[in-house]
């Protein structure tokens, strides 16, 4: 693995984030919600890794832990810094973190709540430059104008407030702000799920265009499998805090190896009335991360479950190069994908 490591930009090993459950007057810790439980993955420079799963599976928590927007409980987050090479984000002192973080940014899901309504576009997009790069006045304005143009907004609007813009335009503002410091790595946390259908395509195209022009690397967190197929080079699937499968997009969709991936893909309604309507409808609910089932977390809902699945927790293993799965029966099963 060492020789390919040069192309990698981010490597996450054994990431864990436990949230304590407190009860009673003394706020005693009575349990742990294992939001992210031993997750490992990597992102190559210039590619998009899609991180998919249902709500509560820990995909957003993983994205935020990488930026240390929330403190991970355990694990190693290796990032290839422009100046110093590989650094562990988790062990960085505050000053160093501030410097490295300029290369890592995030685009949020909800463009209505993630922009301060009392700041103009100039302030919103310009603030990171003033703080981190120490530039002032006209220089900030020029740079903001440049950024707004690159995301498809008119620079004349920079003195307006977010309320004057529609959802799609606000998401463009969010993108411009994320790009303000020339990052290399951007976590896109459900960037289109709050947008209207006709605007989603515009933002997806914009993200792709910027990736091509600026050589960005994306971690694209989403629940919409159609969107992820469209934007991602590789896809990682999560279920109740664990990674169940990771593969290239070309491999994953037609040939899923994990029963959860299969069910997830078959549950997506197809916009085609003539498509065959045979769906695997999963029984029951997503497991509770505070009280997960024994063995494989997916076994109570899995139609292929056997005795071993109830007892032993599967580990994520590399079945073929670039093809990771955590299922005891991965070799034995032949699952249906989407073509």
């Amino acid at each position, binding site marked *: 693995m060492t020789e390919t490591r040069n192309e990698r930009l981010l490597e996450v090993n054994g990431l864990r984030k436990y949230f304590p459950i407190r009860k009673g007057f003394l706020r005693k810790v009575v349990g742990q919600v294992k939001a992210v439980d031993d997750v490992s993955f990597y992102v190559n420079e210039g590619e998009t890794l899609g991180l998919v799963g249902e*709500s509560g599976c820990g995909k957003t928590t993983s994205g935020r832990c990488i930026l240390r927007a929330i403190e991970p409980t355990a694990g190693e987050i290796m990032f290839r810094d422009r100046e110093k090479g590989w650094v562990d984000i988790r062990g960085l002192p505050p000053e160093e973190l501030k410097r490295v973080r300029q290369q890592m940014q995030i685009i949020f899901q909800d463009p209505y709540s993630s922009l301060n309504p009392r700041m103009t576009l100039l302030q919103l997009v310009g603030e990171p430059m003033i703080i981190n790069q120490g530039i002032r006045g006209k220089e900030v304005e020029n740079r903001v104008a440049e950024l707004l143009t690159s995301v498809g907004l008119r620079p004349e609007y920079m003195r307006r407030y977010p309320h004057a813009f529609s959802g799609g335009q606000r998401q463009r503002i969010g993108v411009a702000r994320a790009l303000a410091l020339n990052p290399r790595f951007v976590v896109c946390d459900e960037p289109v799920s709050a947008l*209207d259908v006709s*605007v*989603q*395509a515009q933002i997806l195209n914009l993200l792709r265009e910027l990736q091509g022009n600026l050589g960005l690397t994306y971690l694209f967190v989403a629940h919409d499998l159609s969107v992820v197929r469209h934007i991602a080079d590789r896809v990682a699937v999560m279920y109740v805090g664990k990674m169940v499968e990771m593969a290239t997009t070309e491999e994953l969709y037609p040939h899923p190896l994990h029963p959860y991936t299969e069910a997830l893909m078959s549950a997506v309604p197809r916009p085609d009335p003539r498509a065959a*309507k045979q769906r695997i*409808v999963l029984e029951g609910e*997503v497991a509770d991360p505070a009280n997960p089932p024994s063995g494989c977390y997916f076994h109570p809902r899995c139609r292929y479950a056997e005795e071993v699945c109830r007892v032993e927790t599967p580990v994520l293993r590399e079945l073929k190069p670039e093809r990771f799965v955590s299922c005891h029966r991965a070799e034995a099963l032949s699952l249906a994908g989407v073509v």
Partner: protein
Amino acid sequence: MVANMELLEVKGLRTYFPLDEGLVKAVDGADFTLYRGKTLAVVGESGCGKSVTAQSILRIVPPPGRIIEGELLYHRYLQDEKNFTMADIIDLSKLNPKGQAIRAIRGNEIAMVFQEPMTSLSPVHTMGNQIIETIMLHQKVSKAEATDRAIDILTRVGMPRPVQTVDAYPFELSGGMRQRGMIAMALSCHPSLLIADEPTTALDVTTAAQILDLMRQLQEELGMAIMYITHDLGVVAEMADETVVMYLGKVVERADVDTLFYNPQHPYTQALLRSIPRITESRRQWLEAIKGMVPDPYNLPPGCPFNTRCQYAHEACETGEPPWVEVEPNHWVRCVLHGEAARNSGRNEGVHV
């Protein structure tokens, strides 16, 4: 199966909101028909008036909104043995929104399921009490009997442990369970029409699949009509018999579901179908995005509301209302490209996907 018996005819519905900022024409010309036991999907983006259309039917348009014009003809049927005979036709738009007549229909003959189950259920009443209240309000039954019915309907919607769930508060249930509760409440009086306003949008994919299956199965059992409001074209393809596409308060196209997906005629429908990413399509193609954005409802463009974003827009689109044309039997389009004038000048060539 009952063949196309009209249940609700919506004719020229206009619902306006006179606000301080200006007049918002939330629904500005909606024409469609719902049939017994069939599903009609109403598709559109936020602000297109699809929810206000539903609110107009139930007469729960929030003030200052008002139905300005149009008819909502509800056909009431009498059932004996296996035959349905039409009893009378009620124009819902003429009823007093607070009167007895509409209250006998609302929640009883026409019921609604809302998008966000957490905000539309009462947090201080148990699931069971909310269903029992609905039953007792509309039907002369004792509380014990209503409780039995509530448990029965909860069983039907696939609620696990229905006897215990009757006494559970909404916060104790998961999103999917709450939505099942909402559906149970809506179905408790055996409505002939169920209006579902984005019932699966707030749910996860696998839970949404369960709810969609449940609604289809209940429709088969109970024979109700469903008006399904959504922005998700995948859900439309799976659920609908008939479809209506709305844009800025206007119904722009109306067709059966197969025609809508395979022979769409309105430029907006065509563009929408081309712009969505599909799970069956391999990655890395550019999406054909619709340019621009939905115009501000306070100052709509003159003429066709889609003319600012339409790739076929020309002078005629900015003057006057586009005509409502039946391009083939049961396939209606509101577009100048299909009007008489256009047909004569050959303008409608080139409109196909």
